[in-house]
C-alpha cells in the first residue's frame, strides 16, 4: 500500500502517461521564453527608423526583457510554491499577450521598454520557471530525458519564430505584428492548461489525513513569525546547501561567457569577409545541431552509466564548450566556421539540456522550486554582462579573437571548478550515507533498498530538513500514516 520512497516527493512520479503532455507543454513555454527575445531583433531596424534612436537604445528592449525573465525567478518560485504551476503559467501567458498587444499601440520608446521589456518579460518569467519545476514533479527515472526534450523547445521555437516574425513584418508592419504576436504568446496558456497539478496520492485515508494535516498546519501557521513564513515560500536555507552553492558559483561564472559567442558569431563571420546570408546560415546550422543535441543529451544523461555521475557530465560539457571557443580563432575561413558552428551547437545543446536537471539532482524536486528562482536571479547579472563585455573587448582590440578567448577561458574555468567541487561533493555525500547507515539501521534499509543513487536526495534533504518548514514534517507524518 505504501508508495516506495525513492525521492523526497511524497509520492511516486508517473514517469510517463500525462507526463509526456506536460513535457510538450513545457517545451512550448521554454521555447517562447528563450527564443522570443532573440527573434524580436528583426524589428529593430524599423523601430530605429520610426523612433529615431540609436541601435543600443533599441537593444535595451531585449536586454530589459531578458533581465526581467531571469530576475523574476524568485517571484515565480514564490507563486508556484503558493499556487502550483498551472495558474502561474496561465497568468504568465496572459501577461505576455497583454504586454505585446499594448506594445502595438505604443507611441514612444519608453512605452516599448515597459510593454515589451517589463510586462512581456515578466510574463515569460512566469512561464519559464514553473515549466521546469513541474517536470521534476512528473518525472524521476526519466527526468533527464524529459528535461532534454523540454529544453529542445527553444531551438525549435527559434527556427519557427524567426521566419514567422519576418513574414508578419512584411505583411502587417510592426504594429500589426506585435498584435498578432500577442495572440501567439497566448498559446502559453494552452501549455499551462496541460500542467495538471500532481501531488501525494489521494486515497480515502490520505484525504482524512490531509484534512487533519491542514488543520494542524493552520494552527501552527499562526505561531510562526514572518521569517519562517517567507521561508515557506522561498527556501533561503538553500544557501547552506553545499550542492546548491557549488552549482550557483559554477553557473554564475559560466554564464559570463555563454551567450556572447552566439551574439557575435554573425558579425565575426562578416568581419572575416563572409557575406550576410552565409553568416546567417551559420546560426541556422547552430540551431539545427542544438535541436538534436538536447534530446540526445537527455537520453545519454538518463542512462545508468551517466546518471549517477551526471554532475561530471555537466562539467565536461561546459569545459567542452569553452574549448570550442578557444579553438575558434583558428578558423579563418568559411569551412572552419561551419565546423565551429557544429561543435558549438552540440556543446550549447548539451549544456542547456542539463542546466536544470543537474540542479534538480543536487537539491531534490521539492526544494527545486525555490532553488531555480534563486539561481536565475543570480545568473541574471552575468547573463546581461556577458555580451557587453565581449563587445568592449572587440572594440578595444579591434579583433574578435580576444572575445572568444575570454569566453572560452571563463567556461573552461567554470567547468573545471564544477568538476573538482562535485568530486568533493560526491565524496562527502558518500561519507554521510555511510554515517546514516551505521547510525540508523532501519533508515539505512529503506535507503539500500533502491540501488539508485538518487536516493541520496532524500538523505541529503533529511539532514538539512530541520531549518525547513513543518510542511515537510507533515508530509512525513502522512507517509507514516499510510504505511501503517
Amino acid at each position, binding site marked *: 500500500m505504501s508508495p516506495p520512497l525513492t525521492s523526497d516527493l511524497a509520492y511516486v512520479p508517473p514517469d510517463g502517461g500525462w507526463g509526456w503532455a506536460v513535457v510538450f507543454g513545457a517545451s512550448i513555454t521554454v521555447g517562447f521564453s528563450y527564443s522570443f527575445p532573440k527573434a524580436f531583433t528583426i524589428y529593430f531596424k524599423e523601430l530605429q527608423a520610426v523612433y529615431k534612436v540609436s541601435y543600443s537604445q533599441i537593444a535595451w528592449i531585449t536586454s530589459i526583457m531578458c533581465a526581467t525573465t531571469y530576475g523574476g525567478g524568485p517571484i515565480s518560485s514564490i507563486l508556484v510554491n503558493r499556487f502550483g504551476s498551472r495558474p502561474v503559467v496561465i497568468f504568465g501567458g496572459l501577461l505576455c499577450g497583454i504586454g505585446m498587444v499594448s506594445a502595438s499601440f505604443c507611441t514612444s520608446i519608453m512605452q516599448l521598454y515597459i510593454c515589451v521589456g517589463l510586462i512581456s518579460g515578466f510574463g515569460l518569467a512566469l512561464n519559464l520557471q514553473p515549466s521546469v519545476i513541474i517536470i521534476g514533479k512528473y518525472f524521476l527515472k526519466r527526468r533527464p530525458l524529459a528535461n532534454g526534450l523540454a529544453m529542445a523547445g527553444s531551438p525549435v521555437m527559434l527556427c519557427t519564430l524567426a521566419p514567422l516574425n519576418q513574414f508578419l513584418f512584411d505583411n502587417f*508592419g510592426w504594429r500589426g505584428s506585435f498584435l*498578432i504576436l500577442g495572440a501567439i504568446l497566448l498559446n502559453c496558456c494552452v501549455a499551462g492548461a*496541460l500542467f495538471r497539478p500532481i501531488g501525494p496520492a489521494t486515497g480515502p485515508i490520505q484525504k482524512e489525513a490531509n484534512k487533519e494535516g491542514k488543520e494542524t498546519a493552520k494552527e501552527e501557521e499562526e505561531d510562526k513569525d514572518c521569517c519562517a513564513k517567507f521561508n515557506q515560500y522561498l527556501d533561503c536555507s538553500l544557501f547552506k546547501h553545499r550542492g546548491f552553492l557549488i552549482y550557483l558559483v559554477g553557473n554564475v561564472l559560466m554564464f559570463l561567457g555563454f551567450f556572447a559567442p552566439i551574439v557575435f558569431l554573425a558579425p565575426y563571420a562578416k568581419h572575416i569577409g563572409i557575406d550576410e546570408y552565409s553568416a546567417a546560415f551559420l546560426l541556422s546550422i547552430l540551431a539545427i545541431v542544438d535541436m538534436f543535441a538536447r534530446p540526445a543529451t537527455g537520453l545519454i544523461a538518463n542512462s545508468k552509466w551517466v546518471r549517477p555521475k551526471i554532475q561530471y557530465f555537466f562539467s565536461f560539457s561546459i569545459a567542452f564548450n569553452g574549448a570550442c571557443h578557444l579553438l575558434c580563432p583558428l578558423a579563418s575561413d568559411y569551412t572552419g566556421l561551419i565546423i565551429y558552428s557544429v561543435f558549438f551547437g552540440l556543446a550549447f545543446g548539451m549544456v542547456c539540456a542539463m542546466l536544470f536537471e543537474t540542479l534538480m539532482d543536487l537539491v531534490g524536486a521539492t526544494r527545486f522550486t525555490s532553488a531555480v528562482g534563486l539561481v536565475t536571479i543570480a545568473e541574471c547579472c552575468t547573463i546581461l554582462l556577458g555580451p557587453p563585455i565581449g563587445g568592449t573587448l572587440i572594440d578595444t582590440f579591434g579583433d574578435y579573437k580576444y572575445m572568444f578567448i575570454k569566453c572560452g577561458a571563463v567556461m573552461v574555468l567554470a567547468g573545471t571548478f564544477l568538476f573538482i567541487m562535485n568530486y568533493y561533493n560526491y565524496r562527502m555525500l558518500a561519507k554521510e550515507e555511510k554515517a546514516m547507515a551505521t547510525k540508523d539501521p532501519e533508515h539505512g534499509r529503506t535507503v539500500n533498498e533502491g540501488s539508485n543513487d538518487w536516493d541520496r536526495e532524500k538523505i541529503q534533504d533529511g539532514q538539512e530538513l530541520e531549518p525547513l518548514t513543518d510542511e515537510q514534517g507533515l508530509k512525513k507524518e502522512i507517509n507514516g500514516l499510510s504505511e501503517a
Partner: protein
Amino acid sequence: MRGCGSGTRALRLPLLLLSLAAMCLSEDALSGPTTTTQSTSQQTQNILNNTPTEHNVSTPGQAITTQGVHQETRESFSENTSGGHDRSTDGPRYTTQQTNLTWMAYNISIPGFSSPLIEKNITLDSPANIELSCTVASVSTHAVAIEKTWKKDTKTIESNVTSNETKNVWSTQYKLQIREKKDMGSYMCVMKGEQEVQAVFHLKVPKIKGKEKPIVSYEGDSVVMVCESGNYIPITWIWYTINGSHQVPINDSLMPEKYIIDKTPANKTHLKIMKLTGQDGGLYVCQAVFKLGENNGEVNLKVLNYMVPLKPFFAIAAEVIVLVALIFLYEIYSKKKEMLAEGEKEFEQIEQLKSEESNGVENSSTRHRKV
C-alpha cells in the same frame, strides 16, 4: 603589388578619408564641390581574373567636400599597361569654385579577340577628369595599321590610325572632362586591325537605394521612408508621389503637419508622413540630384486598416480558448472516470465482504443445525 595588398590599405585610407569627410561635412555640408575618389584596386583585381563577364564594378568611393583644399586622389593603374597615366594635377582651370581636379584612369583589358563585349560601369556624382584606356594583350601581329575609334553612345568622337605598335600590345586612350549631364553616357573603344575588339565604359550617376519590399503602415499612424545614396552626396533630394502616371513633387513647407522631409545626413533622406489615410498608399519616388544628372529610388507604401491584423488576432485567440477548454474538459472527464472506477472497486470490496459474512453465517447456522 597594389592589387594584392588592397585588403589592409583599402581599410586604412577610406577610414582616414571618411573622418576627414566627417569633419568637413559638419562645418559646411554641400557647399563646396565634391570629389569622388574611386577605389579601383578592386577593379584591377577583377581584370586580373580575366573574367570576360560584365564588370559591374561600381565600387563606392569616398565623397569628400573640399573647400579649396587640393585633393590627393588615389589613382588606379592596371598591371598591364606600362604608361599612359597622367598623375599630375594639371587639369584645366575652371571658373567655378572647383579646385584642380586630378585625372582618374580606368582601363579595360581585353583578354582576346573572341571574347564577348566587356563593359565597365563607372559611377560619378560630380565633375571629374577621366582617362579611359583599352588594352589588348598578347596580340601576335607584326606592325599593322590599326584603326582606333572612340564612340560616345553611337557617334564616333575620335578616330585615328596608327602603326608601329609596341610589340604584342594594342592600346588606346581617351581623355574626358566630365562637367555636365550630357558628358555622361556610354563610351566605346574600338580597335580594328585584322580583327576587331571593342569595350564599353558606362558613366553613370550613383544608384539610389530605396526599399524593395513595401512598407506597411496603418491609418492614423505615421511612417518614415528612407532613401540612401551610399557614399555619394547629392546636391539635393526631391520626393515625388505617383498620381496616375504623373510625378507630383511633395512640398513639405506647404503641408508641414502632413509631410516632414529630413535631409540630414546628406547621403540619406527621410520622408515622414503623418496621419496616414488610405489614399496615401502607393509608390513614392526619391530623386537625388547630382551635378551630372539625377537618379531615382523607389519606396512602396501600403496603408492598412486596423481590422486587417485583428482578424488573425481573434482567430488565434479563439483557437487558444478552444484548446484550453478542451484540455480542461478532458481533465474533468478523466477524473470522473477515475472516481467511477474507484467507486466500483469499493462496491466490489463491500460485496466481497458481505458474501464472506453471509458464508460465515451459513456455516455457523449449518454447524448449529448439525449440533
